[in-house]
């Protein structure tokens, strides 16, 4: 009996394929939007988590201002060399303290030039980031002091400027600063946010401050705790030290932040939650409109098939059986929309994740939920037309032209 009903419903739907498709378009778009966003979101989260587990949780990021949505950090006071020195001397349990100044500059070698991220730092940066050298060596002491120039380049920069040749010992110009290449970083690939980590040039902090940034301050510090040392303790030690050094009165908020990767990830997820909520609202409206579309077309269908309904009622179909038939048709229609939406959404998500370079993580929960939701839409909006069909007077229905 159920199989018969399903077959009948499918026949009615496929008889008007274009109309059926247009009817469920609202459901398709709603479901596709949700599936695509959630899948892309999952991919990004997975990428960030993979990054986290690679970096370990013992890395802390110290920045001026507060980290998080809606917090301006540009006005907060930057750090000085003395802050870095104080952390190195007074906070225990640290493996690396890497001051960091970051900018973008054009890098030139021979006839080739390439725009890249340029980071002024120390050898501790390589330790904190777990970054090996593929070729050459880290900075020497005199380079660190700034008395001699030296650059370590990432794989992407090497490829752009030198092709397959060995760049160690060659000279490059970083925004008018002549700098011999002393090392090449091992390949790391893309970061969780989708940027190329190998597209970078490292130079000693002193050289960067003087010749590129034109400053004596430091924009951020990366800390790496020793194994077995609780990052929370290091975090609070660094916070109290910096509060003291920056003379922040008791009861006032920090004008800097010390976070580990998971806290930063959580801050980013906060934005995602807002976005997901907004998207959910759009999807709800779209599904509502889609449901009304289904109800409308089912009412048209009941009117068109009045005579058929009359025949069925006359030869022994119970109200319940006619109701079921039209309800199954509406549910099948909306499931058809839901499944199309799931397929379209996954395809869209696949395109986007390929573009962003994050993994494709399809969530079975959301797919199942979308499926159930579209079925429910058909049930709710198909009920009224189905009931109208079931309650037709067979005599009048048979007379209907």
């Amino acid at each position, binding site marked *: 009996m159920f199989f*018969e009903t399903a077959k009948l419903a499918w026949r009615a739907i496929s*008889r008007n394929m274009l109309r059926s498709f247009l009817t469920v378009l609202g459901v398709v778009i709603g479901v596709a939007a949700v599936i695509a966003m959630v899948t892309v979101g999952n991919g990004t989260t997975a990428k960030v988590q993979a990054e986290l587990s690679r970096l370990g949780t013992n890395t802390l990021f110290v920045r001026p201002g507060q980290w998080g949505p809606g917090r301006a950090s540009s006005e907060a006071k930057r750090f000085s060399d003395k802050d870095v020195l104080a952390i190195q001397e007074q906070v225990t349990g640290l493996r690396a303290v890497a001051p960091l100044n970051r900018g973008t500059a054009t890098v030139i070698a021979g006839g080739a030039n390439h725009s890249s991220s340029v980071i002024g730092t120390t050898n501790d940066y390589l330790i904190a980031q777990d970054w090996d050298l593929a070729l050459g060596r880290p900075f020497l002491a005199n380079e660190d002091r700034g008395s001699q120039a030296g650059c370590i380049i990432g794989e992407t920069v090497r490829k752009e400027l030198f092709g397959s040749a060995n760049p160690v010992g060659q000279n490059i110009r970083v925004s008018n600063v002549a700098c011999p290449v002393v090392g090449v970083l091992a390949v790391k690939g893309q970061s969780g946010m989708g940027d190329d980590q190998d597209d970078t040039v490292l130079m000693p902090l002193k050289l960067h401050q003087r010749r590129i940034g034109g400053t004596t301050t430091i924009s951020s510090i990366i800390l790496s705790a020793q194994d077995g040392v609780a990052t929370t303790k290091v975090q609070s030690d660094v916070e109290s030290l910096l509060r003291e050094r920056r003379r922040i009165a008791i009861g006032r908020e920090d004008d800097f932040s010390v976070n580990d990767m998971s806290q930063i990830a959580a801050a980013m997820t906060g934005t995602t939650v807002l976005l997901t909520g907004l998207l959910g609202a759009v999807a709800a409206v779209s599904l509502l409109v889609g449901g009304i579309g289904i109800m409308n077309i089912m009412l048209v269908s009941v009117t068109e098939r009045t005579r058929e309904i009359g025949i069925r009622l*006359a*030869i022994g179909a119970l109200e319940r059986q006619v109701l079921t038939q039209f309800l199954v048709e509406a549910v099948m229609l909306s499931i058809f929309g839901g499944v199309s939406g799931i397929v379209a959404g996954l395809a869209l998500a696949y395109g986007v994740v390929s573009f962003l370079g994050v993994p494709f993580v399809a969530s079975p929960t959301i797919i199942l939920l979308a499926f159930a939701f579209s079925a429910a839409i058909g049930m709710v909006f198909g009920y009224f037309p189905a009931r109208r069909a079931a309650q037709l007077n067979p005599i009048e229905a048979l007379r209907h032209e």
Partner: protein
Amino acid sequence: MTLPPIITFRQVSKFYGHGEATIRALDRIDLSITAGEFVSIMGPSGSGKSTAMNIIGGLDVPTSGEYLFQGIPTSGFDRAQLTLLRRHMLGFVFQGFNLLARTSAVENVELPLIYRGMDHRERRKRAMVALEQVGLKGREGHTTQELSGGQQQRVAIARAIVADPAVLLADEPTGNLDTKTSTEIMELITRLNRDNGITVIMVTHEEDIAAYGKRLLRFVDGHLASDQVQVKEHDHVL
């Protein structure tokens, strides 16, 4: 002990409208039809013959009076019970055939059996037997549009008899057919009445079609004007 009549009307009336505008479609009709009869019903339009058919068919209910089916009063029946009466006891043949469009002959015939919850193979077997009885063997795969009017009416008759009903209700079964096809359809209905013992109640406005019945009822203005047994001039050797 004798069996009760299959159809009994006791003072059955049917009114439409209210007050001054009330139309008395049926006015206190008494009637009884015995199993195995072939009854023709005639009358001008508005005489109440269609209303009587609708009440017999369980599609309509009397305003007053009692309609008994096989001696059982139906006045307490709800919509579902009337549906079950139609499903198990009655077969319908209409003037306009009323087959499902774009559906094959055999699927049309199977329709009443689907609602009985019969399984696919049994259904198909019985539908094929019914189609053979109406002389449409080999045409089961044709859709409604691919069949002539006479063939469509044969499919409709097969659909009406597939569930072995006690009564076949035919409302102007030859109204849309030419004379030759009408004769064929009437011979088929006569044979079903004679050989299968199905009670036939048929509404028509053509005297020569009505003559196939063994009994003729004439309705005028909601009353039964005459009720006579007919001489069997149409007792052909079929």
